[in-house]
């Protein structure tokens, strides 16, 4: 094991002197991702809030057919705007989110006590027009309810007859469990940093060494090749872990600046939570280091290795995407799937659920096992002369 520790010490020393490596693996991720995360959340919540508080500007066609409805809308704070010439185009070009059209037969039907037709012209596929559409429909519905009740009362019927069911919202979600965005993105961001932390080192110690022509002389030393490779991989793992730990610390510092109220989100990461998350994710750091080293060993040059890495970085994204498209309930067997299990576990931890120790154990053991198999493959790769000399 003397060779292994010698290689490890040398790689650490060399890479600490490499400012690019330090920046890429230890600073970029921990600085960038939390800021990106918080920035995104802040943007989403503030945009949402802004739309809710804005005065509703509502162009109306045929306002003169329904003066009492218009009065009602104005009382509720809508700003009625004059009739536009081409309402469909106005909506499609996103100049206004919604236009109300009162049809000519409105007064006639109204007088007869039949449903009077109005059209809400909008494009619901546009995210930003959802809030105004909801408000307009809400107002129309409210007006209809009010008039309906009055009509029933005029005929001597209690309006309650028309409401056979009374719906009450009983909201059981805690502020924590509503933090759905955070639950999906935080594990993803953390796993990405384990990968980004490992990338530069994995490439530099294998493809980089080959490119600089220092691999051949290194392998002439009387040290078994698996020890040399393992020493390199341990360095990569240490960097991946450091990147992960720094990102967690950085999240802890940044999270208090998040707009909490708007999402009903309570996301304070206590020291204990941080340590649990680090424990859950440390097998991922090992897996990332082994996988990236394995791939980079095949590359002839740093540049070639880089082109593989771009694709690998997408791997931790897959579970998050599945999760986003189809939020499923965590079950025991899922703990056997690397990256996916971490995603679920961190979600549970953030939500403040208690997770059985067996789940932790299964997740850690399965990821570690796959990581070690990959590491064993990578460790013996340079026993093939073809890979030592490729590119020279």
């Amino acid at each position: 094991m003397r060779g292994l520790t010698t290689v490890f010490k040398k790689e650490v020393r060399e890479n600490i002197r490499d400012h690019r490596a330090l920046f890429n693996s230890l600073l970029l991720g921990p600085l960038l991702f939390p800021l990106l995360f918080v920035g995104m959340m802040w943007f989403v919540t503030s945009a949402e809030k802004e739309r809710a508080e804005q005065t509703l500007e509502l162009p109306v066609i045929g306002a003169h057919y329904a003066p009492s409805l218009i009065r009602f809308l104005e009382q509720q704070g809508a700003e009625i705007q004059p009739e536009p010439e081409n309402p469909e185009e106005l909506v499609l070009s996103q100049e206004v989110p919604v236009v109300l059209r009162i049809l000519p037969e409105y007064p006639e039907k109204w007088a007869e006590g039949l449903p009077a037709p109005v059209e809400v012209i909008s494009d619901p596929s546009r995210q930003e027009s959802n809030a105004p559409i909801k408000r307009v429909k809400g107002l129309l519905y409210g007006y209809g309810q009010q008039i309906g009740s009055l009509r029933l009362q005029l005929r001597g019927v209690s309006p309650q007859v028309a409401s056979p069911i009374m719906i009450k919202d009983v909201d059981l979600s805690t502020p924590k469990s509503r933090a759905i965005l955070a639950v999906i993105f935080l594990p993803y961001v953390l796993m990405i940093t384990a990968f980004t932390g490992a990338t530069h080192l994995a490439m530099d110690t294998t493809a980089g060494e080959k490119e600089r022509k220092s691999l051949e002389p290194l392998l002439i030393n009387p040290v078994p090749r698996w020890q040399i490779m393992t020493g390199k991989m341990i360095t990569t793992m240490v960097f991946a872990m450091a990147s992960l730990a720094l990102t967690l610390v950085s999240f802890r510092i940044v999270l208090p600046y998040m707009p909490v109220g708007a999402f009903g989100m309570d996301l304070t990461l206590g020291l204990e939570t941080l340590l649990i998350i680090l424990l859950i994710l440390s097998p991922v750091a090992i897996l990332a280091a082994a996988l990236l080293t394995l791939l980079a060993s095949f590359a002839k040059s740093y540049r070639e290795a880089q082109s593989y890495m771009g694709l690998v970085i997408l791997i931790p994204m897959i579970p998050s995407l599945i999760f986003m498209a189809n939020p499923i309930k965590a079950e025991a067997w899922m703990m056997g799937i690397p990256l996916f299990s971490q995603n679920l576990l961190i979600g549970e931890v953030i939500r403040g659920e208690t997770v059985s120790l067996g789940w932790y154990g299964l997740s850690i053991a399965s990821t570690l096992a796959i990581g070690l198999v990959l590491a064993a493959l990578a460790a013996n790769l340079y026993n093939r002369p073809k890979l030592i000399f490729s590119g020279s």
Partner: protein
Amino acid sequence: MIEVKNLHKSFGDVKAVKGVTFTARDGEITGLLGPNGAGKTTTLRMLYSLLPPDQGEIRIDGLDPTRSAMEIKRTLGVVPDSRGLYSRLTARENITYYGELHGMSKKAIQQRIDHLTETLDMGDFIDRRTEGFSQGQRVKVAIARAMVHEPQTILMDEPSNGLDVMTTRALRHYIRSLRDEGHSVVLSTHIMQEVAALCDRIVIIAKGEVAADGTAAQLLERSGSDSLEDAFVKLIGSEEGLLA
């Protein structure tokens, strides 16, 4: 002492080495001379057990590199074709790394580096990072790195490649001193003058085979030429690869 018998190595369809046989004795400098692509580097790589031979036998001080790779690596000092130094480490750290990989103690490494710094005249740059080193400085560090564990047998692939006249002279002087200490030195080169100036024994390799083997005088006699260059051309049968 190195004994090589009927060595063969192919890469796919390309037969790089086909039947190389020679002996390199202790206290002698043996030169593997041949045009580019003749199979010199491949032969050396099999000697330092980085490539397994397809066929043939190698004995270095009686040991077989295919069976006792680790023991052989301990007795070998190799300056391969690729010098590859770590540019973010100083020359001293580069050499120390190899000393540690050989399992030497800190003190032994330090003493050895002091000695090599003096012999190879590296005092000016031993504690500088190797980034931006000249070719000559690089070769010196690569040699010191290969010699840190005091190997008995020394293999050098094109040692004077890219060196200026002064550095080449110093290098030759150093290689002769190694021979005089009783080491077995094998170097590969495609430069005639190098062989003429340095080697006690010349093994001419062309197209993966040994074309001739002997001292400079023997080769001149055998080919009936006045100069080594003519002898070389006659013995390998073409001028191919000479103009490098």
